[in-house]
């Protein structure tokens, strides 16, 4: 085993770290959040020019990375700035289905260059975190020269309000929760009705309504009715990226708390002199090491066999939720009142850390998935 990063990834990490340190202080992050789009297009372009979107995609798709380790390195590093630019929406969830399905290379090129945005319009109002819950329909009717007509409603679509393109999942057959019968489509975002809003921790999302959206044959991605494996793979990449992001946020919360315990004095001593607090710091650090290890494992298994991939990704995302909440709550508690303020940066890192558990499946969802895939693994061995 070798736990060191390759030379390329080390450079990627250094570049990202340097950018965050020099160009993305918390004030910039907060100013970007306040923008109408919920992020800054110029910042996004700069980050894309550094190759940070390309790093998330394999060479076949015009990128220069795309492995689990690449995702983990980039997302952990971005978390140090609580970056709100649409890496997850566009760089992972949006770009991956396109990259895998092939074709549409000019769209992908623009995405990698930070010039176009894609959002993944998959979740639906009654679906919670269910990966195959799709009630939206796609009919192949050939009407007026069109091949497909899409109808449905998608909910909490990350960066869906500003995306130029949507990847929409729709059902060609089967009942609402079935894995069979799903297709993915590339939809020009302007063809959907969209209602954008802020999300609690910064960032934007949208409700998306598709009413009789007509598409030509080439906008179907991959084979009709057989998109579930690709959806699952996309969600796994997203969950790994979020787990790595959570890890970066945990490190920031831990570092800030440690620093605070060394400097804040009460009862004539630094808070860090109180053993009750020392042990809490140690527990936090220990759990973060566990989370880090689970992210490394999932990153290494991302491109491997399905059951092992799903099991390890779910383990990582489960810990991201469980440890994430612990670290966010402990960091606030150990700071005392100051962490309750908008002005103090910690609050924003802690909020993002907590809210990651609401994206692509929470702690319980992934616990159940882990159990299900573990049973499958046992059954097949």
């Amino acid at each position, binding site marked *: 085993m070798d736990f060191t990063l390759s030379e390329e990834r080390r450079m990627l990490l250094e570049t990202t770290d340097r950018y965050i340190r020099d160009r993305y202080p918390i004030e910039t992050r907060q100013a970007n959040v306040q923008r109408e789009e919920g992020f800054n297009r110029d910042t996004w372009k700069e980050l894309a020019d550094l190759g940070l979107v390309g790093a998330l995609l394999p060479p076949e798709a015009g990128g220069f990375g795309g492995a689990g380790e690449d995702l983990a390195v980039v997302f952990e590093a971005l978390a140090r700035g609580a970056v709100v630019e649409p890496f997850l929406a566009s760089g992972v969830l949006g770009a991956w289905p396109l990259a895998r399905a092939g074709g549409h290379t000019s769209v992908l090129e623009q995405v990698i260059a930070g010039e176009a945005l894609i959002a993944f319009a998959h979740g639906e109002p009654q679906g*919670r975190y269910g990966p195959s819950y799709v009630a939206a329909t796609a009919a192949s009717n050939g009407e007026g020269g069109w091949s497909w007509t899409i109808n449905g409603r998608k909910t909490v679509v990350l960066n869906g309000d500003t995306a130029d393109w949507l990847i929409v999942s729709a059902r060609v057959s089967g009942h609402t929760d079935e894995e069979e019968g799903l297709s993915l489509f590339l939809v020009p975002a302007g063809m959907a009705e969209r209602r954008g809003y802020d*999300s*609690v921790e910064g960032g934007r999302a949208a409700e998306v309504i598709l009413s009789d959206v007509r598409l030509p044959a080439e906008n179907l991605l991959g084979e009709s009715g057989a998109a579930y494996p690709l959806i699952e793979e996309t969600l796994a990449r997203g969950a790994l990226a979020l787990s790595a992001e959570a890890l970066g946020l945990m490190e920031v919360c831990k570092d800030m708390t440690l620093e605070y315990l060394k400097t804040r004095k009460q009862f004539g001593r630094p808070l860090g002199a*109180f053993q009750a607090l020392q042990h809490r710091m140690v527990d936090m650090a220990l759990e973060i090491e566990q989370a880090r290890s689970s992210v490394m494992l999932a990153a290494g298994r991302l491109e491997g066999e399905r059951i092992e991939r799903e099991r390890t990704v779910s383990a990582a995302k489960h810990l991201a939720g469980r440890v994430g909440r612990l670290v966010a709550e402990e960091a606030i508690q150990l700071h005392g009142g100051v962490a*309750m303020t908008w002005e103090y940066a910690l*609050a924003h890192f802690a909020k993002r850390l907590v809210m990651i558990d609401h*994206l692509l499946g929470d702690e319980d969802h992934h616990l159940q998935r882990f159990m299900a895939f573990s049973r499958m693994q046992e059954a097949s061995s």
Partner: protein
Amino acid sequence: MDMNYTPEEQAFRDDVRAWLAAELPNPLAAKVKGGKRLHREDYLTWHALLRSRGWLAQHWPVEQGGAGWTPIEKHLFEEECVAAGAPRVIPFGLNMLGPVLIAFGSDTHKAHYLPRILSDEDWWAQGYSEPGAGSDLASLRTSAVRDGDHYIVNGQKTWTTLGHFANKLFCLCRTDPNAAKPQEGISFLLIDMDSPGVEVRPIITLDGEHEVNEVWLTDVRVPADNLVGEENKGWTYAKYLLTYERTGIAGVGYSKNALGHLKRVAAAQSHNGAPLSQDPLFAARMAKLEIDLLAMEMFNLRVVAAAGEGKAPGPESSLLKIKGTQVRQETTHLLRRALGPYAMPFLPEQFDEGWNGEPVGPDDAGPIATQYFNMRKVSIYGGSNEIQRNIVSKHMLGL
């Protein structure tokens, strides 16, 4: 042992319930239940209703215009109010300063201030904490220097809850910087916030709301008559205030109500085609919370009953504070979790009364995530949970 309320207590509960049903305005209850922002007027409306019934000063003796309730009655009253969607009573004048004045104030103070608290002519704020003095309150540095028949006050208070609504501040100040122990040089002063030199600056909390403030005091002239009790004895009064009223500390009523809300939300969310409340993991989380709450209610009643027999609250009140805040925080955590992706949409305008836009997700999803973040405060203030543990461990280990 009898695990039931007496017929008299039951009758009291019925009386309160009927009164609330008749008097609490529906729009106000709807605002409270919907998690909308409450304004100064909302609290004043509620106070006026309670006043008209003689129930405003719940912790004062009848002679002073109080309700004269037993601890059990206070407990029942709180539970009924929360269930009905009543706002909280603003505690600073009624539950904090009032008892201190009744115990330590001069006759002039009592005659002047108590009626003004009862009539809501004054809105008091609590000026204890400072940037450098949180858990270690006795290290406070705001100074009060005698100058003829005035004190000149300089310093900064912080975390002053609803200080932007207040016209008065009860304030701990250092009057003897050379005292042998820091606790011995502190005095309890009543400050008019309209005085020159008082400046209130908002602190926006992590949920984006304005609830706390900084209060800057620069050469504020305070009449020496506004000293409560004796000079340099303020710590005794301050501590009396902090430990005086402990029946509500567990927040049983609040948590029971919130648990009901949680069950409704979980039943309305779907998970794998069934209500989330039937998901084994989520159902187990809710059941554990309910068990904690059930036990805590009994624990609280045991302490309340002991208080009714005149026993001084011991370390149990610290234990209740810890468990009560854990249960409250767990409830808001599960509410947030229940919403799934719908915890994310943030439409702060929907916290305003009269907003009739379309929510994203379930109708009552709006404030839930922000309430979870806001609720982090309960384990920090009122003596942090770590400080409560210090109190209990000293007691247990006989230190």
